[in-house]
């Protein structure tokens, strides 16, 4: 829905310069609130998924709750950090 909202309202500029095109794409990503919203919601769903993975890993591998949380938290935090970093760098 967010991607649809983003694409539907996007204005395609008539540019021929590659450097100018890159600048436009960067501005699309960093200045469009839809992209920020999409990232935030993605992080929320990732947290929800992580919660499910904690219980799944706990019972599948007979891990303690603490160890399951640590196991799941590593890739999830890495993903969240990468997502935030990407938005921060582009902006």
């Amino acid at each position, binding site marked *: 829905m967010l991607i649809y909202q983003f694409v539907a309202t996007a204005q395609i500029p008539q*540019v021929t310069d590659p450097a100018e095109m890159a600048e436009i794409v960067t501005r699309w990503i960093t200045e469009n*609130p839809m992209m920020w*919203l999409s990232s935030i*919601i993605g992080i929320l*769903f990732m947290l*929800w998924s992580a*919660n499910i993975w904690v219980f799944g890993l706990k019972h599948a591998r007979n891990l303690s709750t603490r160890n399951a949380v640590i196991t799941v938290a590593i890739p999830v935090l890495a993903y969240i950090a990468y997502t935030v970093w990407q938005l921060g760098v582009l902006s």
Partner: protein
Amino acid sequence: MMRLIPFLLVLLLVGSVAAQSVEEQKAAIMITSYQVSPEVLMPNDIGTITVTVKNMDPMESVKLTEASILERELKVLSTPYYNIGRLGPAESVELAFTIRAGYSEGIFYPRVVIEAEGAEIIRYQIPVKVDGTVLTLGVNKLPDELYQGERATVELVVGNPRPNTVTGVALSTAAREVIPTEVFLGTLASDDSKSASFNFTPETLGAETLNFAVAFKNGDNAHATTFQVPLTVLASKKSAELILTGIEVESTAGVSVYKITGDINNAGLEAARSVVLKIDEVAGVEPRDPYKSYFVGLLSPDDFSSFELDVKVDGNVTAVPLLIEYKDEEGNPFSLTEQISIESQPTSNSGEFPVSLIAVLVIVAVVIVGMIAYSWKKR
């Protein structure tokens, strides 16, 4: 019979040359002719009087001892002739005297005195005219109305009211709007006239005076007279009048590049040639490809043409100067500048979060937090 020959000869000379006469019929020598150059002097002019002295005796030579010229009003610049020499039978010699005219006009009679051995002294009065009349200059052709920036032809006529021919007649002006600046007319006979045309392209409105000078030579004496032509320059009524209509400014998302489109119309009565539209490069405004400038070419009266221009502006620029250049029928360049306002159009990228999406975000967040809390609580 022998004494009648000189007399008949003199009569013949009088018939052919008006200026010729006989001073002394009994003398063995006589002045058979004279010449004043220039024919008519102007005040303070320098001229020459040349007399022809002839020995009328066919058998005996005569020794000329002195020749001089006397006059009060005219100043004689040359010195008298002394011991001129012997003049053979029936031979003649020309004697020239230099004179300077005074400041008064009229007819003067300098007296030439010739002395010879064994002959009577000859005293001969020569009429010399002094006339201060100068050449006249008038306007022969001039347009009824002169318009700024439009070339007009001014034809002047130079007349010679003097009784003699003048040479080296040249008509000149120092006005930089007039071409050519000088026209050489050459010799101008008495009561004759010659015309010269000048192209005048006025640059300023209002009253203007063109100064012309006529230079000429009377003999070896240079003279000049000036002439003023008062003119009134009006604003052109028939010139091309270019106006812009239907201006549309399209912005490009993401970058401050605008496409300016519209129509350029010729509301004047004359065609505009070589019409070019371009973005005037000022601070913060940069013309961009593909249409940094737009060539329209010939734009006839009551005609129009579409145009398209691309420009990139800085964020604080609110208007773009659009420069229109064109030429008239004579090739005179004109230019005018129109300010095109650049209205910043909000794009979807720069807006705020929509309220509906914020609500969705909050609901999703609440649901997820609730689900997570519920899953931990259930355990």
